[in-house]
Structure formats: C-alpha cells, structure tokens
C-alpha cells in the first residue's frame, strides 16, 4: 500500500522540479519565442513597420499595439499576417483596402467596413486570450490572425 503512495510523491516532486527548471522567469517571452519560431510579427520585435508601435497610452501599464494593413484584391499586401499581443493591451488595426469589403475579427466579433481610399480603424482592448482569425467577408479570404497571449 505504501508503494503507490511513494510513487505518486516521487512523481509529484519530479514534476515540480522540472516545472521550476523549465518555466521562464519572464513570461513576456512566451509570445516572442513563438514569434521567432513562426517568423511572424510580435510588437516591438520584428516585422512591424517603423513607427507602427506607439508609446504608452493611458496608464503606464497598458501598452498600445498599432498595426497597419494594406489589402489589395482581397489579399494582404503589407503588414503582418499574425499579430501577437499580450492580454490587456490596447490594439489598433489600421486597414486600407482597394475595394469595398467587410473585415471580421472572430472571437471579439468586431467588424470594420472597408472602402477604396479610406482607412478603417479597429480599436479594442485585448482582454480575451486565444487565437482569433480575421477574414474578409466579401473576398471570402482569411487575412491572418490575432494572437493574444496571457500576461
């Protein structure tokens, strides 16, 4: 009877030790490791046009992430395909399109009406974590995704 208990205790100790060993000290890195592996844009690391990321807005703890997208013929022409942000950050998407369409951000269920010559803008606080697809309704195309990582 003692043996299974000992087994469970040893297993738990091993698990905790490994957990402590592997857990990064700065969870900030979670998203950016992924970003490097994927070659996608995380704010402040790569891929974002110069000046795209503004300074802090509002309280100092809220970071703002601004992404600019250009769509031509229902297809992303410039800007990152995957946006990685952290939970609680203020996200701004500026979208320019050469045709009339509707952009839909899943999960947050936000819509933006696009038109030629206009810059549509979506602003929201990234309070839900997860991976949320972005699609163009008219062109029936998947533009990319917003990845919101936990803090």
């Amino acid at each position, binding site marked *: 009877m003692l043996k299974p208990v000992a087994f469970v205790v040893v*297993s738990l100790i091993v698990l905790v030790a*490994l957990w402590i060993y*592997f857990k990064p000290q700065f969870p900030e890195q979670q998203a950016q490791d*992924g970003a490097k592996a*994927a070659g996608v844009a995380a704010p402040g690391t790569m891929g974002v046009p110069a000046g795209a990321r503004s300074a802090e807005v509002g309280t100092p703890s809220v970071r703002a992430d601004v992404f600019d997208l250009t769509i031509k013929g229902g297809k992303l022409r410039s800007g990152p395909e995957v946006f990685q942000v952290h939970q609680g950050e203020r996200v701004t998407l500026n979208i320019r399109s050469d045709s009339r369409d509707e952009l839909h951000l899943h*999960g947050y269920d936000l819509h933006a009406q696009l038109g030629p010559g206009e810059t549509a803008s979506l602003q929201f606080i990234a309070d839900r974590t997860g991976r949320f*697809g972005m699609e163009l309704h008219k062109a029936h195309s*998947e533009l990319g995704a917003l990845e*919101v990582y936990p803090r």
Partner: protein
Amino acid sequence: MEKVARGVAALILLLCSGSALAHMMGVVYNLPIPFWMYAFAASAALVLSFLVVGYFVTAQGAARNFRTIDVDVRAAMAAGATLRTMRALSVFALLLTILTGLLGPANPFGNFSVTFFWIIFALGFTYLTALIGDLYALINPWRVICDGIERLSPGAFRPRLRYPPWLGYYPALAFYMAFIWLELFGQAPPRTLGLILLVYSIVNIAGAALFGRDAWFRQAELFSVFLRLIAKISPFEYRRGQAPGERGRLRLRQPFIGLLQEPADHFSLLLFVLFMLSSTAFDGVHETRPWVLLFWKGIYPQLTRFIAQPYLFFVDIYYDWQWAMLFLSPFLYLAIYLLFVWIMKIVTGSQRSLRDLALQFAFSLIPIAFVYNVTHYYTLLVGQAPAILTMVSDPFGIGWDLFGTAHTVRAPIILLADGVWHTQVGLILFGHIVSVYLAHVQALEVFPKGKQGVWSQLPMLVLMVLLTTIGLRILSLPIAAGQVQDPLPQPSSSAEPAFALATGDVAFAPKTR
C-alpha cells in the same frame, strides 16, 4: 481510399451552398502552447515513464489482481423503464438531427443538427462514455430502429450472409476515415449533414439486414466500435444477462482496467486504434505553419519544375496531398508501431508472432489517443455546447420557443489560454502515464518470465514517449495564417509564378473545390 473521398467530395460539392467554415465542429481559438511548456512536458513524460519502470522492476508478483464489484441493477435501472425511455430519446434525437439538417436553417452555426452531431454527440457523448461506460451499446438509435422493425416483422434481421471474418472492423475504419475527412475538409452544410446521416441510417439498417444485427453493430458501425473502445476507460461495465430471463449486471472496476480485459481481436481494430491517434495528430498538424510550408516551400517548387500548370492546379494538388496524408497517417503509425513491437519481440525472444504481439498491446495506446482527443477538442465542447440550449427551443428555425430559451443569444465561451495550456499538458502527461502503466501490466502477462516482462517494455516505452512528444510538439507549433500560401515572397526573377500576383483572387482560392 482517395477515390472514395473524391466521390464523397463530389457529392458534397453538388449539395454545397458555399458557406465557409474553418472546422466542422466550429472555430478553435486555442493558442499553440509555449515552447518551454512543451519542453517541460516532454521531459516529464520521459522521467515519469522511467519511474513507472522502476515501480514495476521492484514489484512483486502479478499486478493483475484487479478487483471488480458486481452490482445488481434491478433497483437502479427501475427494471428497464429508464432504458426504454433513453432508447426512445435516442431515436428521437437521431430523427430530429436528420430533419433539422434537411429542413432547418442553412447557417451551420444556427442549425441544431450541426451543433448536436459534431459537438454534443461526437465530442460530448464520447467523453461521457469514458466516464459512464458503453451506454451507447444499449441505446444505439440504429439498433433500436432495427429492433423495432424486427418486432413488427419477425425475421427481418436474420443473417442472410455470414459476416466474413476477414472483413473485421474495416467497414468501421472506412466510416471513421470518412467521418474525419468530413470533419476536416467536408465543409458540409446542414443539408449535407442531414443527408449523410440519412444515408448512413439506411446503410446501417441494410447492413444489419444482410449480416444480422449482432455482427453489424459489433464490427461495422463506426460509433459502436469507437465508443466501445472508449468505454473501456470507464469504471462501469454493463453486462447483458447471459441466459434468457437473467438480468443485466453493472460491474464496477478501476478506471482504464477495461483496456486490459481482452486484446484486439482483429488486425483492423489495431488500425482503428492507430487512426484514433493519427487522425487527431493530423488534425493538429495540418493547419500549422511548418506543415503548410512543407508543401508550399518544399514540395511545390519541385513540382513546378516538372509540371507546367497554373497555380490553381497546385492548389488542387495541395488538397489531394492533405487528404492523402490523412488517409495514409494510420499506416505510417502502423509502420512505427510494428517496428517497436518487432524490437520488443527480438528483445524478449518471444515465440509469439509479431501480429499477435501487436494486437496484445494495441489497447494500451488508447489512453494516449483519448487524452490527445480531449486536449484538442474540449475547448470546442465548452465553447459551443451551450448554444444547443438556444437551438433546442427552435430546432427548425421557424419561430418556435419550446423551452423559452430561443432568444437567449450566447456568445461562445472562450477559455483563458494559460488555463487551456495547463489542462492540455496535464492531460497528455496523465494519459501517457496510464498508457505506459497498462503496457507494463500487459507485458507481465504476455512475457511472464520474471523481470524480462519489465525490460521488454523499453521499446514500448520509447514508442510511447515518441508518440507523446509528437503530440506535444504539434500542440506547440504555430498555426498558419492561411491554408494556401502565396509562394511568391522570395523575390526570384523566375517569370512563372507572376500570374499569381496579377490576379489577387487566385492566390487565396476558396477552401472547397
């Protein structure tokens, strides 16, 4: 197999109303798990596996003295009245799913049949089965319908043909492959789903009429086979009365022990178990960035060298390739599995045949397959299942409000990403340990020569660590932004891909063909 898939695809295209859906079961919001968590879990799987080995090396005697308790179900089951109600409900649910599919709203997210079949039944009922046992065997709607017909015209289901032994579980495996294909690539709108279920019902009744109910529902019907395997996890087992007039019994056992009760009784069942593993792995990997790029950056440039065809041609090839990979995946896993079983045979010098050994250890893979399925789909179940409460009040979308819930609009529940990660990693580790444990107990039975049983398990241990690591790695891979990648970005001077740029709508072809 692909021809069959093409046939199904043609049928679907014929009926398809062109709605775009990322996944038949709904939209997955899961983030890939962080790399460090993958590294943690993979190392933990390795270390814990050796702890299990250590546990068994020092174990004395047989570890197989599992206790079971038989419970008389006379009182609990209220003498079959409960069962009769559940059978009626089961048939009602099937008919409602078919009818709402055929007649209900065309929007898949608003149609009762889609949510009920893919979320409530395919996910929810599977997980329920793991908890409460093989209830499905008692209330299988197709079997209940057959029993009803038999009562009206006795002899309707006397076996006209003997079920050929070589056929085994291959029909169930074929249905399983079609089911997964439909889930991943089918994009079947409610009408098609209703029609498919109707056709499947007719096939089941015809099959039962041809081979007899027992043979058909034991080996050929997909959900009977699938849920019977899953139910082996459960601590409950229902036993029918042997002699006429004898009551059924409820047997209590330790969870997962049911997997040790019998070996796989046919080679096709081994393939079925391997497809449980490989189909979920394929679902996990087939939309990740490395996998998608493997085709568009690896295979596509090679193909263009030999075949001068427009880009759209290769989009078709891409889907052919994806489908081929899905249908080949169990055979790839089979090759890996047989390799390790063969090493085990060499190590132990066992006189048993490779086939026999492979069948003996097949069910020990089920915990890994099951937890892998749960980690992939439980967020969908939690997120989408509540929507059924709205739909059940107005299943046909014609303005009913049977339960007063028709107008409660529910946003899908989105679980917190780090909670999901921890659950996924925890479940995978748990399933891995259970599988390693079961394989060891099985080894002590199959190779009873002392410690040899334990060390014979090293190949199996390596295999299981490999499977678990693959599973974890897939969970950690970044997801591709689109299935059809624009192969252009490299600024090469080659003129051929230029057409893809010229017409923007070509590069993002719709997913259906």
